C-alpha cells in the first residue's frame, strides 16, 4: 500500500536532529564558512548521537539497532538544513563504515567496526572523485593491480573529506580501466601508508568548512587483506546509489533553508507600500521552490526506499540526483534573487547556500548513510 506519512520513529528523528542542527550547526555555520573551519568539538558532539555505533551489530560492540537508509535521509535533510559542510564533515566516518558494514569480510568487520564504536570521533573517509572535467563515478581512472598477495594502487583522487587526519581511506579503484563498475574494488588504505600522498587542502567555491584534500597514489602497495569484501568484492553501483540518495536529501535540507529564509524576508521587506511577497514575480519563485522541494524529497525517499529493499536503485538515484542538482541550484538562486542586492552581501546566508547549491551537481561519493 502506497502512503507517505512518517512513522513515530521517523518524526522523532526529524525533531531531534532539527533541534540539534538549529543549536549546533545553524548558529556557527556562517563563522565556519568564513574561517574554513570544521570545529573538532563539534565532531565529538555529533559523534555522541551514536550515528555509527547505533547501527553496528552488538557482536562488534555496537548497539545493534536496525539500519534504514530512508531514516538516514530524514536525518541528513535536517542536518543539512543546519549546514551541509558541517553535516558531511561530522558524518564522514560513515563513508567508510557503511561499505564495511555492507560488504566487509568477517575478518575486516572484526578488526575495524569496533573502532567506530569508540567514545571519540573516529576519522575515516573515502576517496572516489578524480580531478578531471569529464569525471563520472562510473568510469574511474585510478587503478589497482591485484597480484598474488599484494595490491598496487595508482591514480589521483580529489575532494577527499578529512584526508589529513583519517585513520583509513577507502579508495575506489578499477582493476581494468574502461570496463565499468564491475571492475571497481574498494581498498582500505591505512594512514601513513607509503605511496599515499595527501596534498594541500583544496580551495572550493563552497563547502568551505569541509576539509577536502587531493590524494595521490603512487605505486601504493597494500596487502590483499585490505580488499573490501575479499574475493567477493563490493557492489560499487549500490555505493554510488546510496551516496546519491543521501546527497539528494541534503540538497532538500539546503533548499529548505534558503527557501524559508527568502520567504520570511519577502514578507518583511516592503517596497511600494506593500511586502515584496505581494508581487507575483516574487511570490511565484517561492511557490515554485515549495513545490520542487517536495518533489525533490519524494524522489530521494524513493531511491532510499528502494535501497532499503535491496533492489537496484540505479534509475531512481540517477534521476533523483540529476533532478535535485538542477532544483537546488535554481532554488538557492531564487534565494539570492529574492533578497536582491542584500542577497549578495555576506551578512545574509543566502549567498552561502547558493555557493553550496552548485556543489551538488559535482560531488559524488561523499555522502553515505
Amino acid at each position: 500500500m502506497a502512503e507517505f506519512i512518517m512513522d513515530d520513529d521517523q518524526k522523532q528523528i526529524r525533531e531531534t536532529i532539527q533541534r540539534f542542527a538549529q543549536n549546533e550547526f545553524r548558529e556557527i555555520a556562517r563563522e565556519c564558512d568564513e574561517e574554513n573551519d570544521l570545529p573538532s568539538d563539534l565532531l565529538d558532539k555529533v559523534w555522541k548521537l551514536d550515528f555509527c555505533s547505533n547501527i553496528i551489530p552488538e557482536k562488534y560492540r555496537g548497539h545493534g539497532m536496525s539500519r534504514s537508509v530512508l531514516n538516514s535521509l530524514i536525518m541528513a535533510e535536517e542536518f543539512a538544513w543546519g549546514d551541509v559542510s558541517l553535516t558531511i564533515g561530522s558524518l564522514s566516518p560513515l563513508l567508510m563504515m557503511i561499505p564495511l558494514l555492507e560488504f566487509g569480510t568477517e575478518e575486516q568487520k572484526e578488526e575495524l567496526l569496533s573502532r567506530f564504536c569508540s567514545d571519540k570521533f573516529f576519522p575515516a573517509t573515502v576517496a572516489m572523485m578524480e580531478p578531471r572535467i569529464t569525471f563520472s563515478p562510473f568510469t574511474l581512472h585510478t587503478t589497482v593491480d591485484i597480484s598474488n598477495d599484494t595490491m598496487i594502487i595508482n591514480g589521483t583522487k580529489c575532494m577527499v573529506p578529512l584526508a589529513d587526519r583519517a585513520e583509513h581511506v577507502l579508495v575506489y579503484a578499477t582493476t581494468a580501466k574502461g570496463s565499468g563498475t564491475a571492475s571497481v574494488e574498494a581498498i582500505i588504505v591505512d594512514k601513513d601508508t607509503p605511496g599515499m600522498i595527501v596534498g594541500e587542502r583544496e580551495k572550493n567555491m563552497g563547502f568551505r568548512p569541509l576539509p577536502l584534500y587531493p590524494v595521490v597514489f603512487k605505486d601504493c602497495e597494500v596487502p590483499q587483506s585490505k580488499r573490501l569484501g575479499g574475493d567477493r568484492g563490493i557492489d560499487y553501483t549500490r555505493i554510488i546509489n546510496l551516496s546519491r540518495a543521501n546527497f539528494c536529501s541534503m540538497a532538500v535540507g539546503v533548499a529548505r533553508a534558503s527557501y524559508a529564509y527568502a520567504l520570511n524576508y519577502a514578507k518583511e521587506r516592503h517596497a511600494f507600500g506593500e511586502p515584496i511577497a505581494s508581487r507575483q514575480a516574487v511570490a511565484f519563485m517561492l511557490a515554485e521552490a515549495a513545490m520542487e522541494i517536495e518533489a525533490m524529497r519524494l524522489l530521494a525517499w524513493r531511491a532510499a526506499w528502494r535501497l532499503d529493499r535491496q533492489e537496484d536503485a540505479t534509475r531512481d538515484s540517477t534521476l533523483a540526483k540529476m533532478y535535485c542538482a538542477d532544483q537546488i541550484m535554481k532554488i538557492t538562486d531564487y534565494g539570492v534573487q529574492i533578497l536582491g542586492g542584500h542577497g549578495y552581501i555576506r551578512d545574509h546566508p543566502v549567498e552561502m547556500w547558493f555557493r553550496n547549491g552548485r556543489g551538488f551537481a559535482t560531488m559524488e561519493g561523499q555522502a553515505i548513510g
Partner: protein
Amino acid sequence: MIDFELAPLTKELIKMDHEFSERVVRKYDRYYDEYENEHKDVKKEMLDKIKEHSAAIQAKMFSGEKPSDGVGLLMAVMSESRAWGSAYIGREATRMGLGNAAINAVATPEQKKRFENLFAAMAITEPDCGSDSSAISTTARLDKETNEWVINGEKIFVTSGHHCDAVVVWATLDRSQGKSAIKSFVVEKFRPGMQVCKREKKLGIRVSDTVSIVFEDCRVPYENILGSPEIHVKKGGFKGVMATFDMTRPIVGAMAIGVAQATLEFTKEKLEEEGFTFPYNRGLHELNTVQKAIIDMEANIEASRLLVWKAASMLDKGEKNSLEASCAKAKASRIATLITQQCVELLGPLGYSREWLVEKWMRDSKITDLFEGTGQIQMLIIARNILGFSREQLK
C-alpha cells in the same frame, strides 16, 4: 509509514487498463480526434468493448480485495493509466467525470450511494467568469413549498456535458453574500429546465464533448446539494466547494502524467530504433543532448507522479491537502505540456505528422494546464498558502 509500493490490486488494475488500451483504445484514438463531434453513433462496437472493460474494472476495483490503496490514490493512479491509453476515451468510458471526484470528496454517505452509478460532469465556468469562480452568477433558490432548489443561469466549457448522466453545478444562493454563498448541486440530466446547447470545437481532447448548458427554472430535490446549505460568511462556505478541487486536481495531474508517459515511451521506442540508448549510469559528458533530454523528462515525470500520489493519499488519510493538490497539478500539467512538445520536436517530421499520435498527445495534454484552474492560478494558490496571504494581499 513511507511506502512507495502500490497494492497488488492497484497494479492489476493498471495492467488491465494498459492491455485494453493497447488492444482497443489506441486503435480508435485517431479516429475520434479527426471526427470530433460527429463520432457519437459511429463506433458502437468500440463502445461495447469499452463498457465491458469498464464493468470489469469496476467489479475488480470494488471486489473488496485486501490490501488496497485508498480510494483517492486509486482514482489518481487509474486516471493516469487511462490517460496513458487515451487522454479522454477511457475517461468517458469508465464514467469517471470530474463531477464524480467532487461527489467523492464532499458528498454524504447517503448521497454517495444515490449518485454512485452516475457519470458526473462538472459545471463551474460561465461566459463572464473563469478562474474567478467567486463571481459565479448562476443562482440556486430554495422553493420552500416543494423543498426543491430552482437553478437559473448559463454554464460553458462543461467537459463531458453531453455524454454524462449528471452535472455538478456551482451556483450562488445569494449573490450579495459573495463566495461563501456558492454551493454545488448535483443535477441529473433528466431534470426539466436543463438544456445542453452548444458543442465546442477544440484544440485537443476532441473525443470528449465540451458543451454549454442553460438552466431555466431547473428544479432538483433539496438533498441534491453537496455540503452544507448554510451560508457561513466568516467560516467560508466557499471552502466546501473548493474542497472538491482537493480531489480533482491530483486526478488532472495524473491525467497529464499518463499522456506524458505514453508520449515519452513512444518517443524512446522510436529513438531506440534509430540506435539511441538511454543508460542511467553515464556522466554528463557521456550523454548527448537527446539522451540528456529524455533523462530529464523521465525525472520530471517521476517527480510529478510522486507529488500526485502524495496529494491523493493525504486525502485518503483525512489530511488537508489543498497545497499539495495544487502543487501536484501545477507541476504535472506543466511538465506534460513541455514534454509532449519536446517529443514532437525529437521525432522530427514524423513527430509533426498526424500519422502518429504524438502530435495529438501534445494537443491533448495542453488542456491539463488549463482546466480545473490554470497553472498560474495554481501558483497563486500555492503562494498564498505558503505566505499565509489573502486574495487581497496577493492578487
